[in-house]
């Protein structure tokens, strides 16, 4: 973009300062997690409004990693997020392959009907889902936390779009060699679709890890809380919680996987958001 060199320097300076201010709340959370609980009970602004962790301690982190409910919640989140991601990948890639590449009767009617499901938000179905899962005795189990997301057609849309972009001749060559649909799908199409699957996997994992409303409705026993839900239960009673430093340490722990995932796969996250938004 146009602009003189000094203008550009000034703009960069303004943006750097803005970014630092933007990150302050996160820095603050990390800093509070690294200060002793008894100090935080007295003051949260020991050095520089509490932004510098002094006196420094790892007690809160070691506590939430080893005791209390946080390790269990972390494990629950990992189980839910990983199994949801794998299942969404399997279901979406199979359906996407069929919609994009197999001329089966009914698909031109079925595909728009499946995509129509995108207009139904989670918030519009969580009450009937609650009653259904209650009838089946599913609540406070992993299946109840994973299942609703498997029905969301966004993954099918992304995979169908992707498979449509693969040139016909690749598949035709394999078919002429006598390979069946399943072989073509697993041996040729899936390896080709790794970039799209990585994008879908990351978006699904982020969603699973961060989802709040449905776990709040479905998981009522603390042993079945996800870390996102557990963190909510900690902050709803600050007063009689295990101490501010420990709550903040749980917050840091809850953020760690998604932040690392984002830092490692920024490009896929950004592309996924752009694709998923119809751009």
């Amino acid at each position, binding site marked *: *973009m*146009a602009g003189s060199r000094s203008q550009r320097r000034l*703009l960069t300076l*303004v943006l750097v300062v803005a*970014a630092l201010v*933007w*990150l*302050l*709340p*996160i820095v603050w*959370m990390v800093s509070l997690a690294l200060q002793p609980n008894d100090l935080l009970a007295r003051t949260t*602004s020991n050095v520089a*409004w509490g932004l510098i962790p002094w006196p420094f301690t790892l007690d809160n982190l070691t506590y939430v990693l080893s005791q209390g409910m946080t390790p269990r919640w972390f494990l629950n989140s990992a189980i839910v997020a990983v199994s949801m991601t794998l299942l969404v990948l*399997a279901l979406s890639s*199979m*359906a996407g*392959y*069929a*919609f994009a590449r197999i*001329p*089966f009767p009914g*698909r031109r009617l079925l*595909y*728009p009907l*499946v995509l129509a*499901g995108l*207009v139904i*938000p989670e918030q519009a*179905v*969580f*009450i*009937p889902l609650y009653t259904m899962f*209650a009838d089946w005795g599913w609540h406070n189990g992993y299946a109840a936390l994973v299942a*609703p997301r*498997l*029905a*969301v057609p*966004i993954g099918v*849309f992304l995979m169908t779009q992707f498979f449509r972009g693969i040139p016909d001749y690749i598949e035709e060559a394999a078919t002429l060699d006598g390979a069946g649909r*399943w072989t073509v799908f697993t041996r040729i199409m899936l390896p080709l679709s790794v970039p799209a699957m990585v994008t879908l996997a990351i978006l699904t994992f982020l969603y699973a*890890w*961060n989802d*709040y*409303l449905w776990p709040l*409705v479905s998981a009522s026993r603390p042993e079945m809380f996800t870390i*996102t839900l557990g*963190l*909510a239960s900690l*902050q709803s009673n600050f007063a009689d919680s295990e101490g501010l430093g420990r709550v903040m340490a749980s917050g840091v722990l809850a*953020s760690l996987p998604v*932040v690392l995932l*984002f830092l490692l796969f920024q490009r896929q*996250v*950004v592309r*996924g*958001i752009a694709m*998923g*938004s*119809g*751009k």
Partner: protein
Amino acid sequence: MAIPARPAPDPAVGAIGTSRTGARRRLGQRGWRDAVAGWLFVAPFLAAYLLFLITPFLRGIWISLHDWNLLAVAINPDAARFVGVRNYTRMLWGDGIVWTLDHQWGMRLAGLVAIALIAWWWHRGVIGRGTALAAIGAGLLLFGLLLGLNPADDGRWGDRRFWPIVGNTLTFVALTVPSVTLLGLALALGLNRDDRTSAVLRTAFFLSQVLSVTVVTLIWQLTFSPRQGMLGHAARSLGLDPIQWITNVDLAMPAIVIATVWWSLGFAMILFLAGLQEIPAERYEAARLDGAGLWSIIRFITLPALSRTTTLVIVLQIILHFQVFGQSHLITRGGPNDATQVLVRYIYQTGFRNSELGYASALAVVLFLFMLVFAMLQLRVSRGDD
């Protein structure tokens, strides 16, 4: 976090499908196998889709036609009583509702001015005929008719809380969406460069977006605390009294808006950056050769080229923020005095605290209808036929 798209069907598909149908008639054996294979490949997803999305959706409509107490039905499945549309009339109507010209006249006058503005844009060709007519029709319905309805002196609404809560939700959207859009656009314009610094800054601004709502509320609940929060510390060091954000009726809504803007700015920035990438470099070159300054380039080249992206960002955010729940539930608990009570939290509480699943389902159906309008809008924008 990411918002599901309401994508446009690909027009090319139909053509390919047709030619393949022709091919299948010649290859009967292969057509058969394709039919079996296709349905088998789709079956696992289709089962989940029917079981966990379509069934609950239809069942939600069914429940909304009942007086359905969560606890009573859990004990005795026959305890649900069919009441027809009574849940809906309770929500939307009341006793002795009348239409008066002067009810909420200030807001209605402002609405009519907005309608006139849209008509003027249409006249000037800024927006298309379809958009203009839809907006004018919706505006006249809302400001001309609906906002004039109110209970007469001896009347009352069936649910006194419903319309104020819809109003709160719309206020939240009206404060959040323009803030995020303008800030996201400004950041995208400033950071649309290929150097290392810009890449790092983009990451910094996007980082808060990947946090869960409960981490965001954990941070901001404490930040807003007058005694323990950073804002309080800052105010005291300037010799000011800390602001009581959460407990003040007028400041609670701005507080959750601030937290939300901090949380979701990255999303708008990313979409604007994607839009900026699509502007061909030659256009900038030509303008620069003509001696255009930075501001005129932004005004006459960048912003017009971003008009579709801007509309998309706005519509997607309306859809996202209309469903706000966690911020209100955890930072302000809907208060003080219902000032930050929003629609999804009202549904949640009606269903799971008051056990009124029938009424909560009716609320959810109305929420769905609101969202459907915006989803249709997004579909139009994504298709680009605006």
